């Protein structure tokens, strides 16, 4: 066992994947609790598709992927939030339009620039080899910024998640905190996308929160539990990806599915006992 682990991390790319993956899993799980409870989950999904378009465009233009994708996706986060709050087009439909639109543009740009290569597969479903050394540094800095902001504004984010009207009535700038949530999500999505893939990154946001809610009944409890679940599932997914040569993103998602099933089962057993 130890052999496998030490062998696994003798590869520089595995260490990079581990560092960034752990940080992103943590960010995604924390933000996911609020997103799921605010019925904002679709925004994470929409942002990942926009991120795919941005990554495709930046690679076609030969630019550094993260430096293009982060601002573009943060910008779309503004747009998606506005659209889902104000637009006369139904919010979910608008998000669907923006996300599929961005996906289509990304595919088009990629195929025009290089032809459809395995590249597109990596973008859509993630690759463990995707992180370069400079990516890692930027990712670490951004992820720590996300975590710090989350910790500082934890109580405010709880308040706008639990009861936005009350929060507004007491003078909390709810609009600002909704936007903050969307921006932090945007950064997290972009950071995780290379490894998890555009199609799979939003599962990192959804699964841990929903799994944690099976058993935890306080906001604090759900938050901590989601963070732990997310980290454990990432480690399991990464290890199995290394051992069995499976795609990293999909392996992490499968680990999350198993955790969800396990927690649901325990919840059922608990309910039966109390009933």
């Amino acid at each position, binding site marked *: 066992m130890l052999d496998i682990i030490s062998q696994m991390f003798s590869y520089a790319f595995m260490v990079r994947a581990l560092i960034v993956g752990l940080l992103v899993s943590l960010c995604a799980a924390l933000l996911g609790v609020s997103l799921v*409870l605010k*019925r904002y989950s679709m925004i994470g999904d929409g942002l990942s598709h926009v991120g795919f378009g941005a990554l495709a465009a930046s690679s076609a233009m030969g630019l550094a992927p993260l430096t293009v994708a982060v601002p573009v996706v943060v910008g779309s986060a503004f747009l998606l939030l506005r659209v889902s709050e104000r637009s006369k087009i139904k919010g979910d439909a608008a998000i669907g339009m923006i996300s599929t639109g961005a996906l289509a543009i990304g595919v088009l740009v990629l195929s025009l620039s290089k032809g459809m290569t395995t590249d597109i597969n990596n973008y859509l479903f993630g690759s463990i080899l995707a992180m370069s050394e400079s990516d890692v540094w930027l990712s670490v800095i951004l992820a720590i910024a996300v975590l710090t902001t989350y910790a*500082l*504004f934890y*109580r*405010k984010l*709880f*308040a706008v998640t*639990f*009861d936005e*009207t*009350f*929060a*507004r*009535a*007491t*003078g*909390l700038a709810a609009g600002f905190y909704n936007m903050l949530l969307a921006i932090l999500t945007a950064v997290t999505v972009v950071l995780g996308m290379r490894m998890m893939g555009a199609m799979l990154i939003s599962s990192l946001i959804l699964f841990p929160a929903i799994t944690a*809610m099976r058993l*935890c*009944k*306080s*906001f*604090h*409890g*759900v938050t901590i539990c989601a963070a732990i679940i997310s980290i454990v599932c990432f480690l399991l997914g990464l290890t199995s990806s290394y051992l069995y040569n499976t795609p990293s993103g999909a392996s992490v998602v499968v680990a999350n599915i198993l955790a969800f099933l396990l927690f649901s089962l325990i919840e059922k057993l608990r309910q039966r006992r109390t009933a």
Partner: protein
Amino acid sequence: MALLTCRDVAFAYEGRTVASKINLDVHEGDYLCIVGENGSGKSTLVKGMLGLLEPSHGSIRYGDGLSRNEIGYLPQKNPLQRDFPASVWEVVSSGFTARSMFLTREQKQIAEEKMAIMRISEMRKRSMMELSGGQQQRVLLARALCATRKLLLLDEPVAGLDPVSTREMYDTIADLHLNRGVTVIMISHDINAAARNATHVLHLRHEPLFYGTAQDYLKSEVCHAFTGGEDDA
């Protein structure tokens, strides 16, 4: 100087007026009940008082050391909150969220006091999901008390409660008003029960049909027409 003053206030959505000609003064120690049918403009007026909606005409002013953000608000029941994982303590202490980044020692102490008043101290670690409707309302009332020193604004506080919890809720509100010096504004469509404890009544149907003391209201034609002339049961 009143805590809250409305002068010829009107509200409009997209150019359509939903409530107008509202004049009222809420003084310290008042218990104002705002009644009216669904869609009569009550909830709009609440939003205006909370500063969530600008009046299209007239002015709403706060006085006697009360600022707009210091109203203790008990919102109407929100179905989204039923399955929300939050402990009683988390909800009560969120009444302070707008004031400071982290909970201060003084705020913790105030939250403890308010929980004791609402008789929910033993439930602090329990989840909102596990509580009865009446208990949940008491938790939200404790949160509202944390957010205010003087004025509670209660939007349909007994909606969806069983008769026993309803009576308890009214008694709790009356106790806050009579014994703890809290000024109360309550929105209700239950005229009889509401007018029993209130000092003043505003009956709204887009425009005020009645505004005055509760005693006068119970004798008024507006009240009799609305309750079908039945006596208080």
